[in-house]
């Protein structure tokens, strides 16, 4: 028990890295994914095609392969990124593809009667977007988005395989030193659970309320 308490600060350090990576990935993916998702929902074919191709490509490959590709593959063509940056780039590439899909889905699931009614009362394209489509899309966007935040925190554990000392790797290191495996894995699991469970619960509540 004493050793376990001793290791806690170390695990918390790892947890902070996990949270940092997840937060960077979420923010960057929103910045990339939201506008591209809008283009995919409303844009002309020539703009939609490359976005669709990108999203389908990235979602057909495991995250782990994307991580390896950015970290081990890109240096071969003279793109050298430090491990933390590689991890964020690879996870963002994956997450933004998901955000693109969620955004597109949120807009496209709005019945077309809404747009027609807005046109009929003479709203401009801009007003239609701001007052009719966007408020409804946000409600449809939030539940799957919060769920995808949970996936990001879970997926960020893969960065330990690039040698980044996140919660997962700090667990492994502590276990390597103390040889107390099962209790430490369970503590680690509870730490992930403590972050993700409230988010999952929030996602379900949003879904009940909005959808």
């Amino acid at each position: 028990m004493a050793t376990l308490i001793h290791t806690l600060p170390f695990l918390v350090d790892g947890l902070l890295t996990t949270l940092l990576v997840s937060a960077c990935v979420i923010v960057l993916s929103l910045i990339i994914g939201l506008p591209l998702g809008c283009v995919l929902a409303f844009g002309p074919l020539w703009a939609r095609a490359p976005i669709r191709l990108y999203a389908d490509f990235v979602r057909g490959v495991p995250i782990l392969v994307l991580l390896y590709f950015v970290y081990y593959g890109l240096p071969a063509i003279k793109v050298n990124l430090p491990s933390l940056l590689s991890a964020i780039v690879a996870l963002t590439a994956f997450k933004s593809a998901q955000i693109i899909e969620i955004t597109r889905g949120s807009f496209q699931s709005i019945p077309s009667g809404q747009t027609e009614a807005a046109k009929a009362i003479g709203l401009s394209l801009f007003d239609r977007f701001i007052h009719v489509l966007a408020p409804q899309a946000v409600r449809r966007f939030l539940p799957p988005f919060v769920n995808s935040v949970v996936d990001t925190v879970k997926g960020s554990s893969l960065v330990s395989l690039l040698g980044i000392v996140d919660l997962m790797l700090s667990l492994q290191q502590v276990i390597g030193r103390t040889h107390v495996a099962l209790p430490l894995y369970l503590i680690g699991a509870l730490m992930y659970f403590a972050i993700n469970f409230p988010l999952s619960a929030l996602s379900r509540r949003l879904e009940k309320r909005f959808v």
Partner: protein
Amino acid sequence: MANYHFNFAIVWRYAGKLFEGLLLSLELAAASIAIGMAIGLVLALISLDGPKWARPLIAAYVEFVRNVPLLLLVYLVFYGIPSAIDLQYDAITSFVATLSIYSGAYLVEVMRAGLEAVPRGLIEAGKSIGLTPMKVLWHVRLPTAMRIALPSLSNTYVSLFKDTSIASAIAVPELAYGMRWIETQTFRTVEVYLLATPIYLITSYAILLLLRLAERRYSVAR
């Protein structure tokens, strides 16, 4: 990019590794999905028709597994459990067990939604022609629930196939492991990824396409 000299010949020599890896990945996915479906179906039935006290237990299982990284569960089962109790198993068994438990937690939800969506009238019709509850389950509820659940199942199956790449973390020689192995043997990094990435892509979309075809054939008209 300009100065990279491609040399596929070396990588081709090891291409067998990739295909063996792909086969193992598919086997891992198929075994885990089969066991996961069984777990999901049984737990979904228990939480719908079973005793009330079982419901919070099932919810606890689902919530725990869904909110913890798969990689941690893989390590927990492979390193954690054998360290605490006297139980020996190899990496493949350990990974299949983990992925089954993991997929089970996702499939419970899918199957429960499917079972709940079976129209009451169908079940009553089954009863009224004299089927036993077991026969109603087998001939009426399950086939209908499967058809309703099919679209949500296909996405889960594809992501489980992609999740088999995590087995490489405990040195199971599946596709991602084979890919890294060739890379460290030959240092032909770009070529390896140019071969391995399409293998994942094509397989993922082939699985999706097959399930879409099944959907078109079997799905319930709404």
